[in-house]
């Protein structure tokens, strides 16, 4: 089983603080997706990282993919209450040419940003 370890599991911070969420595995990712799930809604894709060492920015969110493609991080600068939600990393299946279309999710990081 190709498990994803995500940390921290819970994070409660004040508005304006910075934070980082980590996603790690013992095996290489083909690619990794980050999702955000707001309370009472389904997860929404934030970004997909594919290339080792890749950095992607989405406004105040910075996503990094480790050089060895075994880890990824999400950094939020100057967090706002609207950033509150469950952040999930998910690895895509290795291409097999078969019928494996399942994502493997990390356990998630529940972020609360207090005003």
């Amino acid at each position, binding site marked *: 089983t190709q498990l994803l370890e995500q940390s921290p599991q819970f994070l409660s911070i004040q508005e304006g603080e910075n934070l980082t969420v980590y996603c790690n595995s013992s095996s290489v990712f*083909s*690619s990794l*997706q980050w*999702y955000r799930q707001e309370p*009472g*809604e*389904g*997860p*929404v*894709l934030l970004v*997909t990282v*594919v290339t080792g060492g890749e950095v992607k920015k989405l406004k105040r969110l910075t996503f990094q993919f480790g050089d060895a493609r075994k880890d990824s991080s999400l950094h939020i600068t100057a967090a706002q209450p609207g950033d509150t939600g*469950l952040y*999930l990393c998910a690895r*895509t*299946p290795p*291409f097999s040419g078969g*019928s494996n*279309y*399942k*994502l493997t*999710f*990390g*356990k*998630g990081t*529940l972020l609360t940003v207090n005003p």
Partner: protein
Amino acid sequence: DAMVIQNPRYQVTQFGKPVTLSCSQTLNHNVMYWYQQKSSQAPKLLFHYYDKDFNNEADTPDNFQSRRPNTSFCFLDIRSPGLGDAAMYLCATSRGGDDPQFFGPGTRLTVL
């Protein structure tokens, strides 16, 4: 312009009374998924379809069944809901492979 629609958003049922949750998509994606999600946890995959090919997860209880009559629609049937089945049920679609999954807003199931 909703892409993955789930109905109803909230469903209340009684212990042991069968319930059906529905999902429809306008994306014409080959793959449709059903997940169970309990509070603040990651979604747990129950099963998925690639077109009409059904793929059940090994640990999905027999109490959970699914139907996909056509590309656009997929149903989750819970034959005899127990209190432990109270959860958010998420439907998702994708083209498969490395493509992202598009999730519906979920159905919150309460079992009385």
